[in-house]
């Protein structure tokens, strides 16, 4: 879900400017339909016919100095440009990437980003397998099914290898995931939970070896969220018992859920898909950002309905200030941080708390 608003906002503006023009060839966006089977390895690769897509890795790392959180996202968007433009620079596909490191010793996020239009071999996303290059950043699935991600900049760098310990977890109905009350508001969605991480993290000039657990989310869609949506809460948790839990809610202006969903898969592979009524987020403690003034519910209660009865988690942040202000790069202000509690470690994403994202 994450940066979907960013892309959708851009798309909305494009529609406005495009309406006045005639004779141009607008892109024909593919539609998310239920019943389309997810097929690997092709679906690890890009789906350029859809408007937006991402490869989103989050996780906890154990370093000699203690636990760290990280996220590494590659994001593809298909802007509404004239498809007739023969220029090799035509922005038919644009790749964004974002990486952040949560280090309690620093007390705030270290982050960096890359963005480029696809082309010239400098930025490209393969359609046959997981293989994305964006300048000096990359995320590739090897023949041994391990993923290798490289990202970073001046303040930090991540060079991590992710080894899936479980088969892909198809979200929703076989990978068709509803995102709102309307049938069209949906995405293709699968996750790779419980991935073992090995590799190195550089902070400043110092590089340390790390290991840990990660979660890879893959989602692609062309469809707008509900217009009433202001933001969303999302969480992806690797449970210590080997289970994998994903839950989200889309909020309206009053903070009420417009839609909710998620799933839990046990270590044995038993899967429960949540209906909107099965997921309940509560706020246990909020934190006000001294920079933006936004108030985030950083300590959450999460209750989900399982066949055996409800299960509740109390999720505490690794530290409070995991706010990310990406306005300089044209993105939103949001909170995205490592959380843990009750036998779970994972990532919580909170958007729409600074301002309603324009749709």
């Amino acid at each position, binding site marked *: 879900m994450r940066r979907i608003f960013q892309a959708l906002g851009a798309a909305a503006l494009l529609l406005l400017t495009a309406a006045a*023009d005639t004779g141009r060839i607008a892109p024909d966006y593919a539609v998310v339909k239920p019943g389309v089977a997810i097929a690997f390895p092709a679906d690890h690769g890009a789906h350029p016919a859809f408007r937006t897509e991402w490869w989103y890795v989050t996780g906890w790392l154990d370093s000699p100095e203690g636990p760290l959180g990280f996220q590494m996202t590659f994001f593809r968007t298909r802007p509404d440009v004239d498809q007739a433009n023969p220029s*090799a620079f*035509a922005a038919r596909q644009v790749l964004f990437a974002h990486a952040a490191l949560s280090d309690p010793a620093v007390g705030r996020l270290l982050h960096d980003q890359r963005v480029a*239009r696809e082309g010239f071999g400098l930025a490209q996303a393969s359609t046959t397998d997981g293989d994305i290059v964006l300048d000096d950043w990359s995320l590739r699935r090897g023949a041994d099914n391990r993923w290798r991600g490289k990202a970073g900049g*001046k303040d930090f760098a991540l060079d991590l290898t992710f080894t899936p310990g479980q088969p892909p977890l198809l979200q929703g109905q076989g990978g068709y995931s509803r995102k709102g009350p309307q049938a069209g508001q949906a995405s293709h969605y699968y996750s790779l939970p419980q991935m073992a991480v090995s590799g190195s993290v550089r902070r400043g000039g110092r590089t340390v070896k790390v290991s840990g657990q990660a979660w890879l989310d893959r989602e692609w869609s062309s469809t707008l969220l509900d217009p009433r949506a202001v933001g969303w809460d999302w969480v992806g948790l690797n449970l210590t018992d080997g289970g994998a839990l994903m839950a989200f809610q889309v909020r309206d202006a009053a903070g009420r859920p417009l839609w909710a969903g998620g799933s839990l898969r046990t270590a044995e592979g038993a899967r429960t898909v949540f209906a909107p009524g099965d997921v309940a987020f509560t706020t246990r403690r909020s934190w006000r950002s001294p920079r933006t003034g936004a108030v985030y519910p950083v300590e959450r209660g999460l209750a989900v309905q399982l066949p055996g009865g409800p299960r509740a988690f109390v999720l505490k942040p690794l530290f409070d200030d995991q706010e990310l202000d990406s306005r300089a790069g*044209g993105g939103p202000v949001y909170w995205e941080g490592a959380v843990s509690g009750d036998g779970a470690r994972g990532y919580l994403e909170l958007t729409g708390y600074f301002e309603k994202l324009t749709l």
Partner: protein
Amino acid sequence: MAADAARPSVAALSWLILGEWRSQPMRVITAALAIAVGVALGFAVHLINASALDEFSRAISTVNGDADLQVQAVSNAGFDEALYPRLARAPGVATASPVIQLTGVVEGQSDGLTLIGLDIFRAAAVTPNLLGRPTAADGQAGFGDAGAVFDENAVFLSPALMAGRAPGQKISLSAGGRTTRLTIAGSLPGVAEGRRIAVMDIAAAQWRFGQIGRLQRIDLKLAEGADRDRTRAAVAALLPAEAELVTRESQTRRSDSLSRAYRVNLNMLALMALLTGGFLVFSAQSLSVARRRAQFALLRVLGSNRRALMSQVLIEGGVVGAVGAGLGLGLGLLLAGAALRLLGGDLGGGYFQGGQPALVFAPVAAGVFFVLGLGCALVGSLAPAGEAARAQPAVALKNAGDAVDPSARPRILPALILLLLGGACAFAPAIGGLPLLGYVSMALLLAGGVAAMPWLARALLSPLQARSIRSPAAELAVRRLWGAPSQAAVALCGIVASTSLMIAMAVMVSSFRGSVDDWLGQVLPDDLYLRYEGPSEAGGLDPAAQARLAAVPGVAAIHFTRAQPLRLNPDAPPVALVAQPVTRDDPGARLPMIGKPRPPPPGLTPVWVSEPAAWLNHLKVGEVIRLPLKGGTKVFVAGVWRDYARQNGALVLTSEDYTRLTGDALRAEASVDLEPGADLDQVSAGLKAALPPELADRTRFARPGQIRGIALGLFDRSFAITYVLELVAILVGLAGVAATVSAQTLARTKEFGMLRHIGVRKRQITAMLAMEGALLGAVGVAAGLTLGLIMSQVLIHVVNPQSFHWTMQTRLPWGLFAIVTAALIAASAGTALLSGRRALSVDAVRAVREDW
């Protein structure tokens, strides 16, 4: 005590100096004024140029953003975009930002603009000041920026272009020979006031303006800690012939070299004016010392030593110099301000385009010019001071008259040596592209000419002196001048210096103007010319439009031309690569060839190079050179032609060869041969109707006569500053003559009294003085004219070819010669007459008895 007595007190010294000045104000004022003029001119030229260069480099850095390194195409045709990923991966390069850069024009406006196509994502890291700020329909900027940035029809305008327009409006933009309607998506807040820049998406710019597959520029940001030189080398190794690496320094050098010669010339002329000032100070001080010989002798007798006398004269000169230099700095500041407002940063020379520069004060330069002015005055006072100190008090006290022995022959050897050295310097080559030795030659010639004055005065007057003259007044006049040539020389040196300098300038300018006029006649053979307001490379006529124009009734033949800048050297300004309607067999039909063109060997394309192009790029007829076009085309230098239009040089190809080598089939300007009896206005109207609409608006039709008028008008404008300089030189020269002659006349009161005693009538003395004055003027004019003509030849054959790389034929401005001759003779005769009257009003008996 003794030491104190030897040194007059400050009060006494200032009393002596002020008393002297009070009695001779004109002379002091002209000397100070001459210094002021020299300092003012030099300082103003420096200020104007510093301001213009500052403006120019700011303009360049606006268009270029803040890239660490930049790769630029050598011509508008650009280079293959495949270079972009190669540079992006070069070691040491953090980000490469590909750029389309074209000269464009907005419909209905004649001023050009720079159209830039950017990849916003790359530019954000390399040249953030070129990013547009989108303004959404509701006026809110912000989130979702990417939309307008990718829009093929969106354009962002700099504040200067936005004036009178608003986001959301449409504008028609022409560039690369195409015209497109675009929507104003927002502003360019990072672009400074006064710059005309339009920015759009790189893909849109490639598509809309016919640049698919091409780039004009790649901006590079170096990786942190990357070695600059190693990165440069790595990048340079990847470049094809059509691209070159430029840095801020090389661009500044390029803009500096644009006007360098022009500027150095003006500065040299200012130094010449300063030199004239020095001569005037010398002349004033010599006379003043001669007049005060008795006073100085008395001071010596009263206990002053030589050092004190010498320092008094030097202090006098120094004060004159300081006042003149101070005045000159103020004047220079005013002059520079006015010139920048009226003529622009290139003084009307046409080197810089764009915004009006703001005056930048230069304290260091101010100091340098002040010291120069002061130094000139001190050097001018040195010889008179020495003379004052040398005088024997006893002799000087008694003899208040001319201390010169008429039987002594004036020396000519030092003058000859100076003149010979000057002549030799004229044959030296340029230093660093500047005719520095040419100016040294002029300075030596000037000094030699002045030094030769006593000898010359006697030589010129000898025929008159040898003959017996009927009129006693005339005879007295001739004999006095002949007998005291060194005093005449003192009076003359200021005149000679200013006259010769002025004559030299006038001859050079009139030769230049005449040559340009002839040349215009040669290069404008047709009946009607089509010109465009604004940049010609923005629009163009494709072959279909050319055919439509040729088919207009009344057109017997139509010839199209096209010019594109092409850089042969990263540090030099680009030459123009021109398509002209010339034929390989007879290039001379449309080009004013110098020497005989040579036919190219089979298989080679001929190129005819203009005189400056040949000079600047060391091209010789018969040579084979490689043009930095696609594939590094080899061409044969088939001839050199005269061109005064493009100072940086032009290479002419036949129209067919141009299209073949550049792939550019568009043509811009055209000239028309009319059918006999065809009506000019009708044909113009027909041509206008056949032009593409976006060109028709800014097309102007002109007859050769009109173009010639415009061109000569531009010429006169660019020489406006030299005309002013000439006028100032004449006025200073005349004032110098008046002051000197009147001083000398007043000093001869006793002589006039004696003459009255032996029966010479007042009227006769007056006539004698008038004749003396006229003779003095005539000698001065003769010497000044001769020296000026010699110096003009140095300007024409040394200074001009070395700095501007073109030659010209000498034309003499006879009218000006006549005026200068008459004015100088009349001025010296008139002032002699007037001051003679004053001198004669003193009672004759008292004059003789007067002891000093």
